[in-house]
């Protein structure tokens, strides 16, 4: 059943020849590093799209009573901006690093399930395309990224907008679950000899906790979306009051997923910063055990705070009190992390390279986001803050000031490892300052606007309420922010043209990924390393009394690699096909779903029976 191209590739892999190139090699790759690059480039593209959506929103809000965007377009854009940034940008950018770095950090040759890994990427790509194809139909989702019932019922949202959102999210959920199973097993099972759990790098630890969150939170939103789908397609009334349903049930189900989701969005960033700070302070992470346990505690508690998103719904004083107290409690381990980061740089010898700029910027911004979060935790105060721009400020400080700054730090930090080239330091610093200034100009005033009465998700505002000045300032800020990303793009393009000659260890790193060539060879490690403690590379350098020599590129003879395969892509097309079938059900009946199901079956069966290699 395999094509000759695939056979040739498999022969190459078995013989340890040079890595194959060309489109087909990318479509059939099961190499975690390539999959990481696929995730990263796709996610970055979606990030830029989400950013353009944001710029359009800011232009509309730059003046009162503006008619730059119609209300429907505005509502579609803010919904897509949120959905894109969360599901198509931040999560897959984290996935880029999970893919590329986790096996390297634990000393493994690949992930536990290379084809499942590839499958999760293709499903993600198709999910993102599905979601964005809605624009072509003029029916982009327009109900907000959390799609509250009963606005999402057929009656009040008759078009396909909600369907695109609902089904698109299901597709993306499958990608996340597949990836989570893979990384959970990889981290537990494929660690190099001596790499005990409490010796793992912090990025791997935080990513591990993130996989657990994904595994436990996504099934809940899956069910919620199924119930919504049944309401919209099969006439049930789960969330429709006329039939006895309860819109509040949606809110509970959504936020039981939604709150762990925000930790899914930020924990990988925590892990990245916990790696960058020690390297560029030239001392180990302060309080490793406290950092591991606080991360685990945050994840655990994260399942117990969800109704703090619902303080305005009148749940009653007992529920309000419970969730208020758990929310305050979760601030404690979060604070512990911030203090341990400070403890890491304290007394260090701080090297001001670009990754460190972004890591320090992350701490500064995340403190602000965390503090506004504490302000929300008190229901009587939150009754004013909720659904206002004060919340918009909070979550942008933790998601942009937090996650994006951290992911950018990771980008600059791991760029040489992934691509064999250094990014330009000067352009990087310009990027940082523009981003820091632009970010704060855009989002800090939102605290003020929110507390002074500007609600969120409004496509315009009238004159006379005083909102004009700060909105104009924010729009200017957003343009500066956009400019910072232009600088980043220029940096990437400029350095891409240069030679691929970055050293294995440009930063004096502590962890295993820096002990192999940049970029790594397909099998990662010529010899599987044996680990004796945390920061294994620093330990090795200490034993040698000096730097470790540049690792040579070897032939790879005798190292067995998993076979490439196109069945994950076929199976992914089947998944997408089923969802497209559901969307098209009113027009084509069950045949679309059955066609998708058939493709899925064929993909999975062949996947199961082909030799994994």
């Amino acid at each position, binding site marked *: 059943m395999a094509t000759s191209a695939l056979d040739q590739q498999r022969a190459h892999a078995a013989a340890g020849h040079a890595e194959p190139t060309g489109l087909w090699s990318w479509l059939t790759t099961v190499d975690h590093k390539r999959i990481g690059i696929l995730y990263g480039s796709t996610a970055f593209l979606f990030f830029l799209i989400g950013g353009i959506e944001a710029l359009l929103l800011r232009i509309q809000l730059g003046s009162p009573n503006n008619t730059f965007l119609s209300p429907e377009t505005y509502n579609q854009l803010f919904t897509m901006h949120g959905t894109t940034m969360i599901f198509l940008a931040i999560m897959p950018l984290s996935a880029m690093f999970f893919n590329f770095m986790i096996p390297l950090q634990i000393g493994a040759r690949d992930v536990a399930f290379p084809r499942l890994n590839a499958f999760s990427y293709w499903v993600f790509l198709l999910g993102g395309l599905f979601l964005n194809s809605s624009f072509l139909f003029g029916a982009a989702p327009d109900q907000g990224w959390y799609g509250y019932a009963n606005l999402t019922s057929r009656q009040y949202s008759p078009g396909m907008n909600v369907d695109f959102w609902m089904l698109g999210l299901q597709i993306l959920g499958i990608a996340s679950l597949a990836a989570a199973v893979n990384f959970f097993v990889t981290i537990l099972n494929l*660690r190099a000899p001596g790499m005990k759990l409490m010796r793992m790098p912090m990025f791997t630890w935080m990513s591990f906790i993130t996989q657990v969150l994904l595994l436990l939170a996504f099934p809940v939103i899956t069910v919620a979306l199924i119930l919504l789908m049944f309401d919209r397609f099969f006439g*049930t009334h789960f969330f429709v009051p006329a039939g006895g349903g309860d819109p509040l049930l949606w809110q509970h189900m959504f936020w039981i997923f939604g709150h762990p989701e925000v930790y899914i969005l930020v924990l990988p960033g925590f892990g990245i910063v916990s790696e960058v700070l020690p390297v560029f302070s030239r001392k180990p992470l302060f309080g490793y055990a406290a950092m591991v346990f606080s991360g685990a505690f945050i994840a655990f508690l994260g399942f117990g705070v969800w109704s703090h998103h619902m303080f305005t719904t009148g749940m009653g004083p007992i529920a309000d009190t419970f969730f208020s107290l758990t929310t305050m409690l979760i601030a404690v381990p979060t604070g512990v992390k911030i203090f341990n980061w400070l403890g890491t740089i304290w007394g260090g010898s701080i090297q001001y390279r670009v990754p460190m700029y972004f890591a320090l910027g992350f701490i500064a911004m995340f403190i602000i986001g965390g503090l506004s979060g504490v302000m929300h935790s008190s229901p009587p105060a939150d009754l004013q803050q909720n659904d206002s721009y004060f919340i918009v400020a909070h979550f942008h400080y933790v998601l942009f000031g937090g996650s994006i700054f951290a992911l950018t730090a990771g980008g600059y930090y791991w760029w040489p490892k992934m691509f064999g080239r250094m990014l330009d330091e000067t352009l990087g610093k310009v990027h940082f300052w523009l981003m820091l200034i632009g970010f704060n100009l855009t989002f800090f005033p939102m605290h003020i606007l929110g507390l002074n009465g500007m609600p969120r998700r409004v496509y315009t505002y009238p004159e006379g309420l005083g909102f004009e000045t700060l909105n104009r300032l924010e729009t200017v800020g957003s343009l500066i922010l956009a400019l910072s990303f232009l600088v980043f793009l220029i940096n990437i393009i400029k350095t891409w043209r240069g030679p691929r000659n970055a050293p294995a260890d440009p930063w004096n790193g502590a962890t295993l990924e820096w002990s192999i060539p940049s970029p790594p060879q397909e099998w990662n490690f010529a010899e599987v390393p044996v680990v004796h403690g945390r920061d294994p590379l620093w330990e090795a350098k200490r034993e040698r009394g000096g730097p470790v020599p540049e690792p040579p590129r070897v032939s790879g003879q005798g190292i*067995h690699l998993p076979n490439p395969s196109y069945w994950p892509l076929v199976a992914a097309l089947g998944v997408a096909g089923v969802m497209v079938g559901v969307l098209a059900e009113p027009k084509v009946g069950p045949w679309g779903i059955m066609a998708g199901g058939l493709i899925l079956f064929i993909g999975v069966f062949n996947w199961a029976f082909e*030799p994994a290699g």
Partner: protein
Amino acid sequence: MSDHAHAIEHPETSTGLDSRKLAIWTFIGSECLFFATLISNYLVHKETWLSGPGPFPHQEWVSPAGQHFEPIIEIPLVTLGTALLLFSSLFVVLALANAQRGNRKGLLLWLGMTIMCGLFFVGMQVYEFTHFVHKGLTLKTNLYGASFFTLTGFHGTHVTLGVIWLITLWIEAFRGRIPPAKSLNLEIAALYWHFVDVVWIVIFPVVYLIT
């Protein structure tokens, strides 16, 4: 190629557990949340039949509008299906034991019995669903119906997929392709099958026995 495949079969892992076994446990853990949400949803809505419309499976009742409904549930049938599903878990354990011992005939017998039980269970559910629809309780009738069909329907789908998986393995065993070295393939399916059974052990009393 087969030498390589052999080398992959039992790699050394940090936990000592085969990665595929760990993976199915992980998947099962995630699926527990899936069914927990569906069961919670059912529990939230199970009293909604009180305002009608439509029948309630368990007992004869008269709706506020004066409509008279007969009970439509058939406890004996569902109990039989439940018992068979429980036995099927035993059968698949026996099948696995035979596979690990290299007894192809025993493997085919017990795996076949497992499949039969699974098919009966699915058949029972199909019969029950059509019976309910015929009696007037559909997905759309009321929230009880919606929650009932969604919960048991998704469980039934999981059983069906499990049956297909087991049939595939039966065919492989028939062709002699499940020697003891490959018994892990069956073990993973068996774990999934046990999970599907355990979920039913929760659903059966919650939905059928507690009124």
